[in-house]
């Protein structure tokens, strides 16, 4: 294997170990699939962990505002990889038009309804005890403080003031009934690591990440709240080279994070991914 990427073996092994712990400990387990690059890596790692198989369902929270290419890419992978797709959607909010910007809601309120609430509904409906989520510590300050196995109470709230200790890969796997767990196998990866791994393993990602007409998406979300960045990077190696030089943070193109100082923290504490 390419010696240049030797450090990726350690990242991969750690994630595989976590995925296997999750699969062993929770019978009602699902993966949250945002269709972004991190989710693609997560799916790939899952197939590594389970020797080509995807033994758990993938939940896509569809806000209906996703960029169309994302949905096309999603449906293609579902067919090619045999993914057990579960779609979560807040139809009530969509029907009554309580969305940003038409429904006079803030972006954060819209995220709360279309993503957080839709996720909670599908978790409750399907009875999932635990959900695997592809967040990383380098994305943003509150995620930097996360655990690999992170409990949420029965209202899905994250008690970040009193998180369980996590040492020597002994995760918190015993819970009071009603507790719900978020499992974060990519927590220790960086954005650059993700792209290096995509390059090494040749993992498919949606085309929106590659520059067209001088712009590319660095982080994918809903169309009204996600802006592309100026870029000429039209291949994976070009993206990796670009990341070495950039001084822009990854989520700077995600408008909901910028609404107020603690917008994202409040969203996450109340159950957002």
């Amino acid at each position, binding site marked *: 294997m390419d010696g240049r990427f030797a450090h990726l073996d350690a990242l991969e*092994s750690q994630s595989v170990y976590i995925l296997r712990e999750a699969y062993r400990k929770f019978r009602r387990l699902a993966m949250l699939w945002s269709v972004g690059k991190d989710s693609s890596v997560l799916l790939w790692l899952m197939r*590594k962990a389970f020797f080509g198989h995807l033994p758990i369902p993938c939940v896509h929270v569809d806000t209906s505002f996703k960029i169309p290419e994302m949905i096309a890419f999603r449906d293609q992978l579902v067919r090619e990889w045999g993914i057990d797709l579960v779609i979560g959607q807040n139809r009530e909010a969509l029907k009554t038009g309580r969305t940003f910007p038409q429904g006079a809601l803030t972006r954060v309120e819209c995220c709360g309804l279309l993503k957080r609430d839709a996720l909670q509904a599908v978790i409750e409906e399907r009875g999932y005890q635990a959900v695997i989520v592809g967040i990383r510590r380098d994305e943003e300050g509150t995620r930097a403080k996360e655990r690999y196995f992170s409990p949420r109470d029965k209202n899905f709230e994250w008690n970040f003031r009193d998180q369980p200790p996590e040492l020597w890969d002994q995760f918190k796997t015993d819970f009071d009934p009603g507790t719900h767990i978020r499992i974060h196998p990519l927590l220790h990866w960086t954005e650059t690591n993700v792209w290096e791994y995509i390059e090494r393993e040749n993992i498919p990602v949606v085309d929106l990440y590659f520059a067209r007409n001088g712009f590319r998406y660095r982080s994918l979300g809903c169309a009204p709240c996600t802006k592309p960045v100026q870029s000429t990077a039209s291949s994976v190696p070009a993206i990796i080279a670009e990341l070495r030089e950039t001084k822009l943070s990854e989520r700077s193109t995600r408008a909901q994070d910028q609404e107020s100082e603690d917008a994202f923290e409040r969203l996450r504490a109340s159950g957002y991914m």
Partner: protein
Amino acid sequence: MKVREETASATDLPEQALSDDSDREFVEPLFGEKAFRVVIVGHVDHGKSTLVGRLLYETGSLPDGKYEEIQTICRRRNMPFEWAFLMDALQAERDQNITIDVSQIWFHSALRNYVIIDAPGHKEFLKNMVTGAATADAALLLIAANEGVQEQSRRHAYLLSLLGVGRVLVVVNKMDLVSYSSDVFAQIEAEYRAFLKQLRIEPIRFIPISARDGVNLIAAKTKHLGWYDGPALIDALDQLEAPKSASDGPLRFAVQDIYRFDERRIIAGRVESGSLRVGEQILFAPANKESTVASIESWQTPPIAVAPSGQAIGITLKEQIFVERGQVAATADAMPIETNRFRARLFWMGDRPLTLGRRYKVKLLTQEVECQVASIDRVIDASSLETTSSIRRSVGRNEVAEITVQTRGPIVLDNYDRLAVSGRFVLVDENDVAGGGIVFGGQYLDRAPYRSSNISWAEGQVSLRERIERNGHRGLVVWFTGLSGAGKSTLAYALERELFDRQMHACVMDGDNLRHGLNANLSFSPEDRVENIRRAAEVAKLMAMTGLVVVTSFISPYRADRLKARQIVSSGGVEFVEVHVSAPIEVCESRDPKALYQKARAGLIQGFTGIDAPYEAPEDPELILKTGQESIATSLDQLLGFVIPLLRLDEAEYEI
């Protein structure tokens, strides 16, 4: 890449923000390299988060706009610029100006990539500090020059030594508040060095800095520290050696799960130490069933013949044996310890104190075993290093103690100083990880090569659980040891009577009785004594596995034999308790119920224990009965008080 030479906001910076370092060149970091993990610890308010913030800024690792964002936040709060806000991302942290939870952030020097782990210094958040430090390759211990060595400076150092983070740099911060005095620095160095020496921590060096003013972080020579001739912080970091790979150690492959997604039966697990090879003979402990590695399985990766330490893999076996999660595969020449009792150094983080006799779960590698704390041997004040002298029945939050753990089934482990990965564990109290510990003082045994590879273990249709439910109690082996005449048989038969009268199924295995039949071909030579005990332990195990309480009465003079008996019995999933029936030799000789001492003195018996053969008293038995001083009735009371709780059914276990 240059460090923020384009910084437009330099006028907004605190004084000396760009210090003497603004023209430092940064070369491209090595991207394809594993990040070096450094934890920053120390007393509350000694400037850990400030140092991290400043370090990121000085190395040009901040994203665009981050500095300005913090500036806006501080202005809104009507306070001076606060570097700590970079790491203290939670509102509660900013409002109280303390770090609550550990944070991790990436940066790079000219040489390599780093993950900086910012750990809270407040005593209340010690579990978060431990969470951060447990994964670190090295540590920066931060001490504020104006306050000197404080309680958490010492406690954190102790925890680092316990967590095995041996590479330590001591950073003396806030030198600006003591006018960059070399005397203050020297005094702190002398005091702290002496303390660290007791923990066997040899700090690599002491470095004076001012994090707030950015002095001595990046460039060593500054006008403030003319007397200091060591490297700047970043250079000292770059000089730290990367951790050694664990691939050289003995093989420990921890089984995580067994998969049957397709026609293959794959044993999934991680190589925790050593390396695993196709074609290698491995034994799965406990029980030590043997097989050969047929293949290392993978997906979308070329097949490999050797898996190094750290790799999460899957294997298939040539000989099909029963393997389950928790088992540890090793090679015959370097087996781990298998026991149901071990000593450990532990730090407690639980809300409830650690209490003698309470039920916990120990998690070690992928094993999860019920346990109790059999004794609290020493409680250590992690700050003063003083041992609490009074006898303690509990260990409080943030205390460190030496304890003896008794497990309900066998557990496989190593002494921490021999192999860290399999020598550390956590204790779970109800649902919470509440303690972390390291194993010490365990004894390694050579395996008896007494195995035929052509036999397998036959499993019946009646489970142990069904037997326990019908009997109304668990199986157990109570192993008496002591001199001839100490009262072993008397107590064994008395215990049998008491249990029988309580509707329990108990039986005594008496040394003499066994030698009439099963062991009739054995003499009293040391070799035959070993075999005598081995056979007795094997029989006791089989009987206890059917739900009987087996009470053995053998002199069993050798420690190693009793340890082996413990392992044999534990390997059947049966609890083993060693009871030392202790009476002075003079007392035993005066009793001499079978006139054996008389014969031995007369030279009619050779190799009689206590006369011309040694008796090795247990160092750490579950129970000692002093039959030289106390009546049989008193000893029996003590015995019943200990044994009966062990036989009780635990309701929780039968829920499922």
